[in-house]
């Protein structure tokens, strides 16, 4: 018999940072005002499952001129996440906080007309970053990481990095026409607001890297789950649901 003792399994250092396995997304308690459609029951969808070209976009802001700790900036960022977004975007963050596996609902309106309702799952969180992963039907298929790190010169850098494809052919068309610019505007706005939180006016840099120029035509059927189409149908059928609810009383 060998004298070697079996080593106990090590607990990975990132244990607890990742969302647990789940068959589909669950929305425990939708916050008041959230449309809460196109999320519950859906699976998450990553860069592998999307349709369009794969892009990695990195937005950075150097918070030079303020003495800040990365952990403090990250906490402020999470606490004010919604306030740092443009008015057209409403993130309904989970009451339990941005814990891995929790779901945030998103409603995007243009001129008070619902454009798309969807959500994200908190994929990952540690003391320096948190990441969201998209559900089926979301305009993008992938994930986005928000992080804060110290720079060698003593200041703090806040970064947003997305790795995603358009989820279906319609979204891909939309991204090429205007969606990509709109998206870059949203995240640049957020970093500008984050800097403004510390009374800083500093430029935001954007790096675009095309990781895969090919489209995944075998994923064209994702359009069945398109949250924008479904949000439009939901809006158009609001009177029908109202009549049904009156009859059902």
């Amino acid at each position: 018999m060998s004298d070697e003792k079996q080593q106990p399994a090590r607990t990975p250092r990132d244990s607890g940072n990742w969302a647990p396995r789940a068959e589909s997304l669950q929305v425990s308690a939708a916050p008041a005002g959230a449309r809460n459609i196109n999320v519950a029951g859906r699976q998450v969808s990553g860069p592998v499952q999307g349709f369009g070209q794969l892009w990695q976009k990195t937005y950075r802001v150097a918070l030079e001129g303020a003495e800040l700790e990365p952990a403090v900036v990250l906490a402020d960022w999470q606490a004010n996440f919604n306030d740092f977004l443009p008015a057209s975007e409403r993130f309904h963050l989970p009451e339990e906080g941005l814990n891995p596996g929790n779901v945030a609902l998103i409603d995007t309106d243009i001129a008070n007309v619902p454009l798309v309702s969807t959500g994200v799952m908190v994929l990952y969180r540690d003391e320096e970053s948190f990441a969201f992963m998209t559900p089926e039907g979301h305009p993008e298929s992938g994930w986005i990481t928000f992080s804060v790190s110290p720079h060698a010169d003593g200041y703090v850098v806040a970064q947003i990095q997305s790795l995603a494809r358009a989820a279906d052919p319609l979204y891909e068309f939309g991204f090429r026409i205007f969606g990509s610019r709109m998206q870059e505007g949203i995240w640049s706005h957020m970093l500008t607001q984050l800097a403004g939180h510390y009374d800083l006016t500093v430029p935001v840099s954007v790096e675009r890297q095309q990781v895969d120029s090919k489209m995944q035509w075998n994923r064209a059927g994702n359009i069945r789950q398109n949250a924008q189409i479904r949000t439009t149908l939901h809006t158009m059928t609001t009177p029908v649901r109202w009549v049904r609810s009156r009859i059902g009383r």
Partner: protein
Amino acid sequence: MQQAAFNVDVRYPASGCAVLDIQGDMTGAAEPALSAAYAGIDSGAVKTVILNFDALDYMNSSGIGLLVTILVRVNGNNQQLLATGLNDHYQEIFEVTRLSDAIRIFPSEADAIAAA
């Protein structure tokens, strides 16, 4: 957060197979080393790339993103990407991120080579 060094070695245990032994912390900082290791593989001769995660200590969301970029390059070179050495925790992460839809996971390197 204290980070352990990232290292990746390349081996060729069978004809047409390259194994990338991944060690340490897989974060965004691992990109140059991982990218260089893959770039050093002869894409004409190697048809299967096996990622061996036996010595993986830590991975964050930027680290899993690196696997997506390797997957794209592997697919572009008409190779296949397999994984081995994943403990239950990292296997679960592959499933949560749905990378397991595109990267087949094997319990041992020998199993991965046999399936290549």
